[in-house]
């Protein structure tokens, strides 16, 4: 087990380097100039621009810039400085990140509970009414883009029924985040339900399930012990990679409900071509993604002995 973890950790290093390099190249080699963007439409004289570029290290070769930036992260936890405000990126994120994390965590929880629940209902009744109802429901959810779903929920529950406030306050309490979390988690919820349903329906027909019935086990045990454990393995793989995606996808939801999370920061930095902030943000999301995939790999090994001993 220890060796397995070590191997997975080692394998993550090149992925981390590759992904961050990719994002770095995307931000800095594509057309568009963060320094010029700083001055807006007015423009500035070339000497000022050059001086600023030099000060920010933007005149160095791209790989050198990447090296400086990454060593800053690894050695000092320094994710760079926001050009416009001059504040460290970690500070800027420090305010917004907890809100987004809370939102994503809630969405994640909803996704797990409802997604697996609906998937189980459908999978155990494959081909029957409940299965078809869940199928239609999930297809609809997948088909309605998040921002459309957002304004549907907003206009129904906030404007028509007055159950919720249309905008989340600055405190972003758990109860206020409920509606945005449902919107954010809905798409993944549908995917989790579909995946759970498919693996359960498939495993229901496996030989070991037949054995479990032939052993005279009670239904609860057959499903709870023999079916669930095997069926959850692929679902967990999906869930693990999804937390990062939820945080990335929060941009839309946060905008809709006016949540003061990283969504606003991301949009702002993108509109202003704020390279450092963008790279810093995405790097953090990549770290979340890698961390979660490690957790998934460990869970996977715990759940499936065939992996552990491979």
């Amino acid at each position, binding site marked *: 087990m220890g060796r397995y973890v070590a191997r997975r950790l080692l394998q993550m290093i090149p992925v981390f380097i590759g992904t961050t390099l990719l994002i770095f190249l995307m931000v800095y080699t594509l057309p568009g100039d963060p320094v010029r963007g700083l001055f807006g439409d007015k423009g500035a004289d070339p000497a000022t621009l050059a001086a600023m570029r030099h000060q920010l290290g933007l005149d160095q070769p791209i790989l050198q810039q990447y090296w400086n930036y990454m060593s800053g992260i690894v050695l000092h936890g320094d994710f760079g400085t926001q050009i416009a405000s001059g504040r460290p990126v970690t500070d800027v994120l420090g305010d917004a990140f907890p809100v987004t994390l809370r939102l994503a965590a809630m969405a994640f929880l909803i996704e797990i509970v409802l997604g697996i629940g609906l998937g189980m209902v459908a999978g155990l009744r494959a081909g029957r009414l409940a299965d078809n109802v869940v199928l239609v429901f999930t297809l609809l959810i997948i088909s309605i883009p998040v921002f459309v779903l957002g304004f549907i929920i907003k206009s129904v529950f906030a404007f028509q029924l007055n159950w919720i406030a249309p905008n989340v306050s600055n405190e972003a309490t758990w109860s206020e985040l409920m509606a945005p979390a449902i919107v954010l988690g809905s798409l993944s919820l549908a995917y989790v339900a579909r995946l759970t349903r498919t693996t359960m329906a498939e495993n229901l027909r496996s030989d070991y399930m037949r054995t479990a019935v032939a*052993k005279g086990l009670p239904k609860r045990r057959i499903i709870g012990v023999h079916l669930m454990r095997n069926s959850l393995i692929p679902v967990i793989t999906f869930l693990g990679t999804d937390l990062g995606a939820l945080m990335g996808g929060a941009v839309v939801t946060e905008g809709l409900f006016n949540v003061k999370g990283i969504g606003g920061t991301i949009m702002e930095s993108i509109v202003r071509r704020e390279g450092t902030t963008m790279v810093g943000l995405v790097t953090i999301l990549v770290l979340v993604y890698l961390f979660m995939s490690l957790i998934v790999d460990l869970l996977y090994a715990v759940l499936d002995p065939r992996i552990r001993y491979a």
Partner: protein
Amino acid sequence: MTTIDKTAEVPSARSGDDHVGPLLEVRDLHVEFHTRDGVAKAVNGVNYSVNAGETLAVLGESGSGKSVTAQAIMGILDMPPGKIPQGEIFFRGQDMLKMSYEERRQIRGQKIAMIFQDALSSLNPVLTVGYQLGEMFRVHQGLSKKDAKAKAIDLMDQVKIPAAAARVSDYPHQFSGGMRQRIMIAMALALEPDLIIADEPTTALDVTVQAQVMDLLAELQREYNMGLILITHDLGVVADVADKIAVMYAGRIVETAPVHEIYKRPAHPYTKGLLESIPRLDQKGQELFAIKGLPPNLLRVPTGCAFNPRCTMAQDICRTDIPALSPVTEQDGTELVGRGSACHFWKETIHG
């Protein structure tokens, strides 16, 4: 239709109850599968019985309905698409098809147990073998985890798995094929059931291991005086262990007989064909006989005798009338106990 009669002196049932008669009796069982392409009639009126301590071998090709019959007895048919439109399955005189789910569950594992062909896929890959064995005791006898584990080790010892105590926490994929099949056997034996159904228990194994596993099964059966239904397509496996044989074709029993008689004098052209297709040392160099054609499509079973398109003896009557399983007699009319054949020309086959 006749059922297979007793062929051997059998000790009475172990568990003390007042039921007399066969341990298990299948009467006029029908099973069909509703598929997209139509209704597949997998079992069409099967009758057989097994006594305590007796071994019945059910022989047939793929799709002959031998496994489906066993699954119907066990109550593990997938329904739907499977359906039992007709028939009775008596266990100790009680029709299991009329029992509630809970009543049947109490029988499964405790009274009737099953050994499957592919032990690797039939054992749960993510649970240790000790857990899967111990589960029988925990569920049916309410033992604690610790006691169940000790029992599991005992069982593994009994089926001759070396270093049982050390291997009880291993997972199925860590065992060899033969060892895995022993674990399946151990699981079936756990609660000392009255009847074991073994569905091709050795087919997936190497020839050398096959004999060991078969011997073990026969030995344990004698020890516990259990009834055994051995489902196989391999005539060679049957000869040493079975008391009587039922040959199935297209969902019907086409011939029944005590084991040794069938080898000497088959009374159905299909059985005859099967026996002739076994390679024999004294016929070295000759071309091996093979039954022509393929098993019938169960969606469109031929009219009359289902075997007629492949039969060397087929006449017009075979294409119109379904032959019933009728008693087989000597030429002089003396009854041959336990023998039956579903062929219009059984006399010609056995005596001709």
